[in-house]
């Protein structure tokens, strides 16, 4: 790798306009545009084209501006693109600013009914007589706003070349097959679709053609995938408190469980979903259920994690299996509740006062949202501790493509739980480290053996679970908990590594930044800069990550927060290698985009190369 190569600053992403562009649809919140947007996304997907959808929405129910981004890309790069080329300007309030974001030659679709709109003459502008369509169809009253969205859907479908049948299929899916709704919407769609063919002259290069790139894929949100995974993982109790962006995870759980968890004979529910009075209560209920032996979980976001911190400490210290999904949003405080971040990594890792260290999982795609739904319960019971799954708003609430999920092939790992017969055979002391791995045996309430019962406590205790303030007992217990954490390293899912001996520079990342990183690596490779890549899937780390860092001169740790939280954790885990780790942290509330990463990487890498040369000289 040389400086000259890096200075060739050609960051523009591949710009073939057939099956490769981004659309942004600007509307006001609460106008029902989500149906039209998801229909468009699904129609493109049904044409066999890789798609990604990002909903940029306000913390509001009605009225504030909202934007829906759809990216189509034949190569499969469907991560966030902050510079879409097609704008559907459907919100007069933001139209001016929305247009500013476009480049010359881009497309602006707008309602020609607007009186005071000033168009940019370097764009391809298409006016839609929205009111006319609605008037002709006799649409009045409340549904007017909803139906209006079918107009831009019709115009876009015609302009881009999406067949009417495909839209119909997608709409059918969105409305769950409710024919009356589909039909009434299709009327407006069809009139806009036909009108566009007759009245608008296509003079932009953006269009689609069918491909066969999405067969055997499905579209889903991470919260739905996580809920489904949790069901497969055997969740029987979920307790929660409403908070964006995790609410839809529990709502999906409610849907799946009511369908799949009924006693076949009596029809009675064999699960419980409890809306608690706050997140403290939710965490408490989960720990109570965990102590009883149930697979129990909660889902929340940063402010909820804050409230759960005391219970997290209890769970760690009293060693109670529990699963906590943190669908991260932007803090501190209420911050930006409808934007995404990876800002809770340090907080969750050490959540709890005193010496506390927690087990964290980082799903990066829909498959892992599902798989970790299962795995989190296994880990919680194997390690007997709270397990945190750090998803985020981008993963949780946006729509992603994924291969179908696989049915778990192995039985649940319940960890070291003794039955009455086991106790009879082996005896039982709750905190005696029989196996030398720091993980001790537990019993569950209901175990009838006279020696099985024990008193679980958040106060100091000795190995027999008896209250103790003795210095030795305290130190012994805390050392064992530390040893347990060391043992946990072997249970954690391994990092995903893409390694080539030739390369001196690498990227480490985790979670939802994956699509942007894949795209940036592809682009940089095309420019001759080949980067190795390691994706962390869990904390605590194991030696794979240390070995990986040791094999590189410079390792860029990419993440969505201000302070480089994973960078800090890695630096403290491997102080001898810390100087090789360079933080590329960034947080503006939006998902990571490849262009930011490419630009930032080049700038920092070029500085680092210069200083390296300087020291050598």
């Amino acid at each position, binding site marked *: 790798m040389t400086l000259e190569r890096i200075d060739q600053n050609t960051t523009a992403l591949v710009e073939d306009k057939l099956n490769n562009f981004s659309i942004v649809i600007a509307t006001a919140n*609460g106008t029902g545009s989500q149906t039209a947007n998801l229909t468009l996304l699904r129609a493109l997907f049904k044409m066999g084209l890789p798609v990604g959808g990002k909903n940029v929405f306000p913390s509001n129910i009605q*009225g504030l501006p909202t934007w829906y981004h759809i990216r189509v890309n034949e190569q499969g790069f469907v991560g966030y693109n902050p510079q879409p080329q097609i704008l559907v300007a459907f919100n007069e309030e933001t139209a001016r600013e929305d247009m500013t974001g476009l480049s010359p030659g881009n497309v602006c679709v707008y309602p020609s009914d607007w009186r005071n709109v000033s168009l940019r003459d370097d764009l391809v502008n298409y006016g839609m007589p929205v009111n006319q369509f609605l008037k002709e169809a006799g649409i009045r009253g409340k549904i007017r706003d909803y139906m209006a969205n079918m107009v831009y859907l019709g115009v876009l479908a015609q302009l881009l070349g999406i067949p009417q049948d495909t839209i119909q299929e997608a709409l059918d899916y969105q409305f769950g097959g409710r024919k009356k709704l589909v039909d009434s919407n299709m009327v407006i769609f069809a009139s806009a679709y036909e009108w566009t063919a007759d009245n608008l002259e296509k003079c932009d290069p953006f269009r689609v053609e069918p491909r066969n790139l999405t067969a055997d894929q499905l579209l889903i949100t991470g919260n739905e995938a996580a809920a489904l995974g949790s069901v497969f993982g055997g969740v029987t109790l979920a307790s929660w408190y409403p908070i*964006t962006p995790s609410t839809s995870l529990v709502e999906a759980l409610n849907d799946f469980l009511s369908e799949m968890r009924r006693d076949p004979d009596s029809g009675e529910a064999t699960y419980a979903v409890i809306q608690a009075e706050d997140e403290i209560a939710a965490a408490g209920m989960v720990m109570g259920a965990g102590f009883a032996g149930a697979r129990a979980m909660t889902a929340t976001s940063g402010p909820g994690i804050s409230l759960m911190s005391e219970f997290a400490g209890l769970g760690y210290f009293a060693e109670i299996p529990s699963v906590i999904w943190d669908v991260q949003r932007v803090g501190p405080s209420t911050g930006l509740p409808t934007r995404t971040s990876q800002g809770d990594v340090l907080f969750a890792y050490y959540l709890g006062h005193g010496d506390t260290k927690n087990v964290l999982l980082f799903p990066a795609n829909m498959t892992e949202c599902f798989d970790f739904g299962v795995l989190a319960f296994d880990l919680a019971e194997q390690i007997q501790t709270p397990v945190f799954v750090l998803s985020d708003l981008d993963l949780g609430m946006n729509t992603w493509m994924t291969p179908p999920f696989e049915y778990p092939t192995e039985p649940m790992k319940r960890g070291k739980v003794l039955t009455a017969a086991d106790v009879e055979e082996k005896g039982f002391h709750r905190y005696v480290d029989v196996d030398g791995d720091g993980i001790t045996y537990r019993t569950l309430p209901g175990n009838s053996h006279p020696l099985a019962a024990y008193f679980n406590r958040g106060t100091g205790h000795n190995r027999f679970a008896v209250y103790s303030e003795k210095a030795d007992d305290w130190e012994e217990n805390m050392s064992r908990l530390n040893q347990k954490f060391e043992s946990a390293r072997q249970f954690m899912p391994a990092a995903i590594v893409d390694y080539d001996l030739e390369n001196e520079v690498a990227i480490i990342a985790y979670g939802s930044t994956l699509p942007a990183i894949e795209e940036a690596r592809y682009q940089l490779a095309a420019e001759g800069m080949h980067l190795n890549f390691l994706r962390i899937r869990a904390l605590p780390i194991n030696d794979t990550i240390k070995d990986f860092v040791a094999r590189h001169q410079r390792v860029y740790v990419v993440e969505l927060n201000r302070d480089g939280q994973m960078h800090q954790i890695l630096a403290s885990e491997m102080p001898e290698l810390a100087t090789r780790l360079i933080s590329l942290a960034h947080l503006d509330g939006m998902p990571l985009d490849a262009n930011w990463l490419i630009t930032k990487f080049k700038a920092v890498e070029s500085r680092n190369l210069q200083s390296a040369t300087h020291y050598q000289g």
Partner: protein
Amino acid sequence: MSQITLDPPTLTRKDFVSDQEVRWCPGCGDYAILAQMQRVLPDLGIKREDIVFISGIGCSSRFPYYMNSYGIHSIHGRAPTLASGLAVANPELSVWVITGDGDGLSIGGNHLVHAMRRNVNLNIILFNNRVYGLTKGQYSPTSRIGMRTKSSPMGSIDRPLEPISLALSAEASFVARTIDSNPKHLAEILKNAAAHRGTSFVEIFQNCIIFNGKEWDSYGNRKTRDDHMLFLEDGQPMVFGIDDDKGIRLNGLEAEIVTLGNGISESDLLVHDATSESTALAYILSNLEQPAAMGVLRQIQRPTYEDALFTQVAMARAEKGPGDLNSLYRQTDLWDVK
């Protein structure tokens, strides 16, 4: 330097309108409450700089955005704690807590109870729409049993809290109820709440048009509202109904709805006494559903938390004289570092 004195300006509604565009859903009951608050405040004779609005999280908690005053948009459920600290630190301030049935009664139920019990000089205004709005329609602690929401697909099984009963149990010194669709009554209640020293607790039936739009229909509809609400007046018999022909009578320990005539006259009816030290009557009234008791259910005088606190300080001073930091230091062993 010469002192500059300014005449206090005469305030109008506009002085309390902030530069933020109001963004609740069209048809939301919050607009009416905001309008009345902005109308009432100029008449209270309180300087604008002495007014503070504090809220937690939820749709109602957006309220302080739109008030041109001091304010804090804080964290979920905890507004009463900030407000308590503020009121004790500066008892000259007029401190308002704006909360909802989720913020105030679920996550913040604990703090709400303790603020009222202490009788901190606060005006706590709870918008009750019996649903979570901002998180899109889950059931709340005031939702009826059986209410189907996204989080209670088979109907809520949680017994609802009655906010007025809770306030009475916490011995709040001012407890009132009003409704967003009756601006005159709403304004009157807000004025009374502001004038009261100690914790004023006001429940407002507030319409969430998106997620629970029918909840208060019969309380707002011209044809039915008079049969659904009993407007309390101190010292007056409890008469209600579109023809003023119904009343509330005590039958044992229960309130009984009776029709006037046929031997039943106003003298048989309960007479409202908001100033009773006992919460018994107010408690009976708080549990009426149809008609719901509107107006001031309870208003008694008892020392505010701040008053009691400062009285203690004054007493200690009177007994022991002014404090002397030096002698306090010398009471215990001191080390001389040489």
